[in-house]
């Protein structure tokens, strides 16, 4: 009770509701603006939004008549944060298979796939996306405004997991962000059982698929009967398309595997991104030279597997120092607890990453890496006004998001979890709690 009333009062105090301006016009006054761009952090600056787009950033901006104004009172504002590679909107309850759409498995485990290839790079997660998933609301109120949907690999499928893309978390159905489509390939120890029980088998099969997908297949290739090649006709088209400079995210941790992935990308014509990268610091120089960005989980520091023996808390700091573009993504509960991604950034900073690089790893760098930086990822004139006002340092665990905006429109700061909280925050009344809503 206390909370809801206080919250409502706070919002009323913050926003002076306009008459003339549109719902997508907004002036944020007196904020600590973390631009995540070349301008860095601006103290006591204003942000003017019109038509959902940032029109000006600086001190003492003139206020258009009737515009909705928020007094930030020195508190930080950042671009809306990247949630990492997740299954937001394609996974409701991880343990309930019928609510999970993030992996393709066309042949039952243990069954040979005689009749159809299990390699389906043409698999595209986007049709499964449900913007009304409870996990999206939970993430949104935590300041996360976009994510990249990443398919996973399961038995009966392929380590070439299929395609995902960036989506906005503002609740719209057609949420895909143009230009972000990517192919996901999961390498390393996990993929072995799907590659003849050898890491080298992964590259053998990938090379076979690339050969199948080569334009104008030879008569011999065309004669391959369906079911005996790795790819369908659609799959060949897909691989061909990515072979012309398409973005391919390799999930891979071991340093030697990262190098093999880079070589494969070169001979295939892929534009690589490395995800996982627990040992990426060991090959930081090569990654920097090839200008390959890396998504890492900055909390991975144990040799949890032999692919991880070199995992270190200063992985992000070392990569950054070597000139690699670093961004974050979680290896654990990436979907439901996507909000934990800020904690990764904070810990990376505590272990040597410059603070501005920690913020960029949640904003500008993923936007650049997934081809949406013309719209998202920084607070600059012309960018979409997806913004977050924080109670304090946005990388700090004790900080919470106070208000989120999409295209200049304030988002609801309620989720299923805040509603549960508010219900049980109150002492029991004369009626059961089920009547309190």
């Amino acid at each position, binding site marked *: 009770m*206390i*909370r809801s009333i*206080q919250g409502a009062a706070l919002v009323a105090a913050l926003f002076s509701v306009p008459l003339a301006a549109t719902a997508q016009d907004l002036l944020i006054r007196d904020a600590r603006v973390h631009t995540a761009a070349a301008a860095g952090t601006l103290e006591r600056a204003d942000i003017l939004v019109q038509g959902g787009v940032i029109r000006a950033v600086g001190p003492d901006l003139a206020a258009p008549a009737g515009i909705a104004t928020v007094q930030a009172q020195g508190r930080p504002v950042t671009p809306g944060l990247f949630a990492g590679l997740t299954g937001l909107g394609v996974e*409701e*309850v*991880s*343990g*309930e298979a019928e609510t999970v759409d993030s992996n393709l498995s066309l042949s039952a485990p243990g069954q040979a796939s005689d009749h159809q290839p299990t390699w389906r790079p043409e698999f595209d997660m986007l049709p499964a996306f449900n913007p009304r998933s*409870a*996990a999206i609301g*939970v993430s949104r109120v935590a300041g996360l405004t976009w994510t990249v949907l990443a398919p996973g690999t399961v038995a009966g499928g392929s380590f070439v997991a299929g395609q995902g893309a960036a989506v906005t978390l503002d609740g719209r159905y057609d949420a895909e962000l143009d230009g972000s489509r990517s192919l996901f390939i999961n390498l390393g120890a996990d993929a072995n059982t799907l590659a003849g029980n050898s890491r080298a088998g992964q590259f053998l099969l990938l090379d076979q698929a690339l050969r199948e997908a080569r334009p104008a297949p030879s008569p011999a290739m065309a004669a391959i009967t369906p079911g005996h090649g790795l790819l369908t006709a659609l799959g060949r088209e897909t691989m061909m398309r990515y072979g012309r400079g398409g973005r391919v995210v390799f999930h891979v941790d071991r340093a030697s595997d990262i190098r093999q992935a880079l070589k494969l990308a070169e001979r295939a014509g892929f534009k690589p991104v490395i995800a996982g990268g627990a*040992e990426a*610091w*060991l090959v930081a120089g090569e990654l920097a030279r090839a200008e390959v960005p890396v998504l890492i989980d900055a*909390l*991975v*520091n*144990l*040799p*949890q*597997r*032999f692919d*991880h*023996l*070199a995992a*270190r808390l200063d992985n992000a700091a*070392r990569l950054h120092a070597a000139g690699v573009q670093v961004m974050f993504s979680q290896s*654990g*509960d990436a*979907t*439901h*607890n996507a*909000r*934990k991604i800020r*904690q990764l950034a*904070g*810990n990376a*900073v*505590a272990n040597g990453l410059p603070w501005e690089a920690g913020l960029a790893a949640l904003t500008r760098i993923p936007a650049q890496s997934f081809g949406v930086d013309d719209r998202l990822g920084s607070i600059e004139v012309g960018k979409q006004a997806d913004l977050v006002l924080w*109670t304090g340092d946005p*990388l*700090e*665990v*004790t*900080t*919470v998001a*106070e208000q989120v905006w999409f295209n200049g429109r304030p988002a609801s700061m309620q989720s299923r*979890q*805040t509603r*549960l*909280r508010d219900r*049980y*925050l109150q002492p029991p009344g004369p009626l059961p709690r089920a009547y309190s809503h």
Partner: protein
Amino acid sequence: MPKPFAWLAISAIAGTVLAAAGTSAWAQTPDAADAWDSTYQPIASTPTLIRNATVLVGDGLRLDGADLLMRDGLIVEVGSSLSAPDGTTQIDATGKWLTPGLIDVHSHLGVYPSPGARAHADGNEMTSPVTPQVWAEHSVWPQDPGFGAALAGGVTTLQILPGSGNLIGGRGVTLKNVAAESYQAMKFPDAPHGLKMACGENPKRFYGGKGQAPMTRMGNVAGYRAAFQEAVEYREAWRRHESRGQNPSTSRRGSAGSGNENRQGPPKRDLRMETLAAVLEGEIMVHVHCYRADEMAVMLDLAREFDFHIAAFHHGVEAYKLADRLAQENVCGALWADWWGFKMEAYDGIVENIALVDRPEGSCAIVHSDSAEGIQRLNQEAGKVMGHAAAIGMDIPPQRAIRWLAENAARSLGILERTGTLEAGKMADVVLWNRDPFSVYAQAELVFIDGALLYDRNDPRRQPVTDFMLGQEVSP
């Protein structure tokens, strides 16, 4: 010295019981009764005085600009302007924070160690849904690199539990977080064992999936009840036997039976029932993996039926729904800050769970990890809760939040008289942080266990490296 293993001692020497005059004599029988005891010895330390720190005592008190003196493994004094005897190491802690060593009541380090090889999966004896006879300590691999990582996060004591695949998974063990070649040398002296039980989805999913009991939540409860009823009868058989041994001619039970009964030997020793009988005697602390509020209420009734006490519910993502009852019944809630949604019984998780469980008078909220990553950052878990609580007008100061990581955890493990707060006479388990420990930027600089400096962030020679990692070709 407490005798937490009285039931073990009784049964371990069962063959000689008839010759003994009474229970006090049984415990004196050497060797067998001492088996599995701790061999932990505090590492030699110099007297140390830490000066001018912000001290979170752990019991709700905060002292600014205070000193702490430790000697011979114990805390001697906490206060202002303490004097240092000759030979005392002095540490200037200006601007830094001092807390009790952190305690994780739910860890699988050593039983699910790194690397997580198949050969290392030693945490779940899922061959039967009721396995109170297994002890997690017999699986602990002391070379798990996770122990050292937890130490760098300020963890000085941890309970290693069996997994949650079984209704009754076995005994947990409390360890001091010291590097050693055997678990016995890590074992917290005289700490009671824990009993791991599990509600809900895990046991019924695994066994039900094989077409055997339990397949449902009601099957789960039938399983607990059958096991505890068996334990009641086992204990009764032993009591009858003991009373005959102590005073055969006047034992009511003995004389009421047939003449043959007096000539019977002791009941057959049963390792399963030995554990559960010790639970009924209050010698083993009960830790129940349980997510949903309604299932916690079911488990409280199970405890009522068989007259045992539940020390803590673990995970309890819905504990906020019955916070008042947990406090009233003196049951701790060992919880995460933000995990939710990975299965149905975790669907109602909220970040304010710990704050709401902490709210009632007499409460016992605990931050636990169940994770080799989370155990390194218990302080940050608490920080998340504090931030979300503040946003709804619940201001939880650091001196209160630290209780979730130390005092309350020690209480649920039955070791609060020895550790968990910075009070004179307790084990000198102490962490010096570079700043307010509830910040994401906070780092443990120095960690003392029983007064010995066993972790120094700025001195690689005071950082443990396990045999497993030694010489791996991956160093910078």
